């Protein structure tokens, strides 16, 4: 009963999110026993844009979850193991740089030891596109409270590019876009109704990526 009540409250307090997933397959994919993947956020210089760490972590965790979960090497572990080849200043920007990079014997051996079959590059971010309203709070010796109404809209736009480390080619691209409006009415107590835009984009992206890499026929 308590769980149902909590679920009802949670669903009531979540704003609506629209999401769109698009996929382009360029080559066949497949995961064998012992194969691993790594999810990397784009942070190349001199670009000022960086994919959020929590989005990268979220996709990596979702990929590893479930009965058909993949072996996912964490981004930090991968960067430490392959240092200095995947740092912001040194990481390959285009797939045609990958074969040249893999000519480094020690690096190629390390990728082989880690079982890295696919490199998944995530690009994009979540941005607040608009906000309006006002909310005022006051405190007095007799008590306090807030009054007002706030609303804001977030837009998440991400693209995953998947590189195959065996042949140094791009195997496909998946884009995940989500937008949603959050509200916060306040009559004494503020009640946040949050649209979990980034989380939604992450879940959709991970689900699609998993299907794409396993090549289960549904994607």
């Amino acid at each position, binding site marked *: 009963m308590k769980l149902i009540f909590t679920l009802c409250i949670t669903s009531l307090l979540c704003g609506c999110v629209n999401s769109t997933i698009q996929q382009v397959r360029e080559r066949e994919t497949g995961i064998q026993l012992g194969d691993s993947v790594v999810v990397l956020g784009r942070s190349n210089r001199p670009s000022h844009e960086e994919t*959020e760490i929590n989005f990268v972590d979220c996709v990596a965790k979702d990929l590893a979850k479930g009965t058909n979960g993949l072996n996912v090497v964490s981004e930090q572990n991968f*960067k430490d193991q392959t240092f200095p080849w995947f740092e912001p200043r040194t990481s390959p920007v285009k797939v045609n740089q990958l074969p040249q990079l893999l000519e480094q014997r020690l690096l190629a051996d*390390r990728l082989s030891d880690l079982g890295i079959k696919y490199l998944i590059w995530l690009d994009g971010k979540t941005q607040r596109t608009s906000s309006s309203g006002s909310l005022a709070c006051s405190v007095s010796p007799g008590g306090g409270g807030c009054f007002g109404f706030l609303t804001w809209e977030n837009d998440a736009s991400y693209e995953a590019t998947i590189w195959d480390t065996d042949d140094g080619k791009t195997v496909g691209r998946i884009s995940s876009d989500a937008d949603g409006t959050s509200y916060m009415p306040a009559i004494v107590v503020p009640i946040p109704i949050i649209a979990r835009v980034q989380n939604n984009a992450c879940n959709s992206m991970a689900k699609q990526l998993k299907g794409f890499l396993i090549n289960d026929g549904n994607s």
Partner: protein
Amino acid sequence: MSKSMAKIIPWFKAPELTNGTKSARLTTHVLVGLALFTAGCSGAQVSLENQFPTPLLEPIPIKAGIVLNEQLLSYNHNEEIQGSGKFNIHIGSAQRNMFSRLGDGLFSEYSVLGQLAGNETVDAILLPEIMQMQMALPRQTRSEYFEVWMRYRFHFYDNEANLIGSWDLPAYGKANQNDYRGDEAGLKAAALSACRDAMAFFSLNFQSESVAARWAAGEKGTPKAAQETSEDTTSEKTLESAENSAAEHEAADKIDALEEQKTTEQAQPVANETATESATESATENLTK
């Protein structure tokens, strides 16, 4: 019982023992609130004791001596930013681990030396120095990023401590404020990123940098060798794209721009390099020449 409690925690209990209970309680709450509010604006103390990775590279067959002197190991960047408080980044605490890892990955053998002096047990000596360091908060740059810039100068000596030449290396690190809670965590991540950037750049460009290549090849310096500072670090880079060299120049340009801004605008925060004050002065002279 109540009195004994009041003795133990007089600050919290005292208002309840007076007549003006409500106003005293309110004062306490306001003070606690103010303390919490100002805690967010009181700067940050950052110390880097992190472990760094070992570069995955074929080691150069050389017995290197790496001088980690007190000046480097105690390097502190202090900066006061108006409205944000005092910031202190103890970058020196990261240097021993950084250069030990670089030594492990880059050279077939290395030893850490405490000071520069002739040493027959090594083939050549490397002396790293931090010339400059700058930081920026997201609210200063109106961006989402904490940023740290550093400029290293590597001095290359033969094993008799004769200078062969020097190599300037700019490094840059940033951290998104949305990924970290508070200034301390954000600045720490940016400083760590700058350290890794310096290590990565040093590792990958070491053999293509002419001074370093001559040093590794066993060239002897002369006691009065003119200090050769290699500014053109874009030449002969392996696997480095145009974007990467643009990033390097961007880091150097940002250091220069920030330095210029700080000297021209009196309202700007005052940077004080405690450990390498004289080194910073000479670096600024070089930059303005």
